[in-house]
């Protein structure tokens, strides 16, 4: 069974924007000499709070102890968290998105949702073009990349922004939604944690599409 779940592509157009490796990226943006090098923040806590993609490529994971990081990746630049800088750049991030729509939900320091519904005519761009333009402004003006997902609702927008990372721009229109959900394990859906996953697996539900096709109880 592989029929579309809905025939409308964007009954609403919701954007989810996520800063790639936000804290580490802020450090690289502020100190260009750090660009291209493995950067880890969280020195004051003794564990990795955020790591650049260069550090991720060398196997550094969130929560890893600094002693282990130094062993695994001796060239890593380990910095204390500088929340003042991160929140300044975060405020600029949201201000740039608000140039396009006033309807922005600041979800955390490094991610937000933006409702673009109805903006095609005033901006004279398609939803995808608006999303691309916002991403272009963010990447250029903040000096590091963002991953953007465009979808008919918040849950799918989050799936879209994670689809390609870092620096992704993925649109999941309603009429193509089933192709994406088919490939997505149900535990990767926002709000489905280990308990719900275990319950769903008991009922033979493994993909997000399978879950979406289940009738309401």
């Amino acid at each position, binding site marked *: 069974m592989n029929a579309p779940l809905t025939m409308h592509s964007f009954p609403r157009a919701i954007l989810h924007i996520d800063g790639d490796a936000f804290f580490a990226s802020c450090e690289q943006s502020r100190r260009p000499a750090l660009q291209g090098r493995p950067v880890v923040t969280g020195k004051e806590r003794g564990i990795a709070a955020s790591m650049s993609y260069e550090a991720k490529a060398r196997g550094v994971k969130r929560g890893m102890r600094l002693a282990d990081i130094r062993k695994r990746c001796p060239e890593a630049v380990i910095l204390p968290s500088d929340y003042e800088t991160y929140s300044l750049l975060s405020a600029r991030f949201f201000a740039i998105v608000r140039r396009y729509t006033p309807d922005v939900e600041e979800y955390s320091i490094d991610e937000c949702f933006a409702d673009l519904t109805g903006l095609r005519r005033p901006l004279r761009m398609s939803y995808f073009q608006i999303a*691309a333009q916002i991403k272009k402004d963010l*990447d*250029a*003006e903040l*000096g590091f990349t963002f991953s953007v997902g465009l979808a008919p609702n918040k849950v799918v927008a989050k799936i879209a922004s994670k689809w390609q990372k870092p620096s992704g721009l993925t649109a999941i229109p309603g009429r193509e939604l089933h192709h994406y959900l088919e490939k997505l394990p149900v535990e990767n859906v926002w709000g489905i944690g280990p308990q719900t996953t275990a319950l769903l697996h008991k009922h033979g539900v493994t993909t997000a599409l399978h879950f979406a096709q289940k009738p309401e109880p």
Partner: protein
Amino acid sequence: MPSDNELLAITGFRSTPAASTLVARLVDLALLDDDVTGRLLSGHRFVGLPIVGTVAAGFPSPADEELTDTMSLDEYLIANKEATYILKVTGDSMMDAGILPGDLLLVERGVHPRDGDIVIAQVDRAWTMKFFRRRGTTVFLEAANKDYKPIHPQEELTIAAVVRAVIRKYA
């Protein structure tokens, strides 16, 4: 901003290329800007900043009394708040352009440099501030100090930001 057809109606030109040439000039002057899709947007010089007054280097003029308008330094110096950053100058390579060690720079990210702009650039993995020069298809960096030679990038040149203002405080 107007479409091609609307431009023809406004300007009275009969051909689209004529209108395109006009638009290209306005883009060069930063009065207009075109986005990725080729649509026209207002450029950063489209809205002019009011001139508050002039100062004669002599006795104060009674006309100063009439200048009741105020101005904000942020508004005067910064075009795009979100893209503007402050850097502190080290080194003397831009001395003859009036930029001295210890000065503060307001730099703007995410803009394309024009010939003659002062830029913050990464050239062959090192960071520097220099004049951006474009000669035909080649670009190079030039210092404002005769002790430094022009830099012709061997591998790659990344322009991180364009310098918009220099601030010096006489404490």
